């Protein structure tokens, strides 16, 4: 048991150095793939939330990143942003695309979440996301029945918290977009 302290330090240092070197190679090898997946996911999300655009541009306004979609004529057809907020288990991150001319939401796309599989995780399903297609701007009411007014969002059965969280994140995102871009186009 009387190993010299210098030997203990040496052992841990050697292991630490070897593992750091090995991991830096792994990092270099995997990073391009990981970044590519993230970019693809973002592009796919943009195509979903600003459907009519041909080209997308990333712009920074007031410290926040927005994505603007332009059609073939060079006109801006929509604005999108990545927004996040607390869900049931952890942060939900999603993308919201809006049409500033008609003051309506194009659609939403969930990017990351850790909601309960089979329950809250259904926020990624089409049934729930359809709630937001062509939704007018405003304060949303999450209801547990068929929506009767335009500002009502139908909750997922058994996952009211997740449903409300998403509605809240979308509301806040729209407000932020309106603040920066003003009411009009």
């Amino acid at each position: 048991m009387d190993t010299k302290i210098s030997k203990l330090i040496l052992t841990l240092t050697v292991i630490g150095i070897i593992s750091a070197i090995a991991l830096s190679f792994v990092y270099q090898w995997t990073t391009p793939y990981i970044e590519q997946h993230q970019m693809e996911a973002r592009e796919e999300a943009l195509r979903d939330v600003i459907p009519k655009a041909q080209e997308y541009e990333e712009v920074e306004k007031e410290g926040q990143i927005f994505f603007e979609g332009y059609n073939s004529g060079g006109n801006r057809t929509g604005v999108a942003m990545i927004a996040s907020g607390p869900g049931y288990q952890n942060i939900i991150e999603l993308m919201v695309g809006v049409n500033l001319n008609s003051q309506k939401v194009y659609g939403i796309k969930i990017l990351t979440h850790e909601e309960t599989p089979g329950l809250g995780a259904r926020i990624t399903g089409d049934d729930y996301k359809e709630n937001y297609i062509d939704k007018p701007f405003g304060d949303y009411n999450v209801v547990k029945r068929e929506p009767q007014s335009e500002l009502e969002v139908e909750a997922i059965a058994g996952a009211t918290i997740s449903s409300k969280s998403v509605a809240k994140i979308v509301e806040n995102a729209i407000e932020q977009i309106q603040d920066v871009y003003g009411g009009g186009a």
Partner: protein
Amino acid sequence: MLKKLFVDFKNGLWRENPIIVLVIGMCPTLAVTNTVENGLAMGIATSFVLLSSEIVISTFKNYIPNNVRIPSFILIIATFVTFTDYFLKAFFPDIAASLSLFIPLIVVNCLILGRQEAFASKNPTHRAIADALGMGLGFTWVLVLLSAVRELLGMGSIFGIEILGSWYQPMVIMVLPAGAFISLGILVGLMNYLKRRGN
């Protein structure tokens, strides 16, 4: 000699199965077994980490002073876990997204450290490989069985493919943490019963 290796291998499958007999590594067992895909991926990832760290530790055990044995093991395990994390994120992004933070948490899975202490640090490399394969497979088959039961009852599907028709009303509790405790408890009880009858 081969027979002895087979005994080491078989040990983890049943007699000293990490989940149902040793009852270690409960955190991933309860948390990620809500779908078969998650259960299987977790089992494979854990087995890979277990195998690589048992190989390294059993090979270099004579150079690691006893006083710093635990931190050394953790460093080695953490290296392989980080590798697994990057690898899954780069090549299996969907699985990485659904397992998310449970991959980095393999570092603190007591199954891994436990096998280094109990086996790899005392036995030669070839026996450590047999032990890691047995324990890894033993861990994986229980995860897959547990997640199959939970996914089937909780969502009516296996591997995301619908098995039970639309007449089936999913038992939502099975995909929630409570369902994990219930099904694991029943499974361990059943195994104990079978074992007692065998004796």
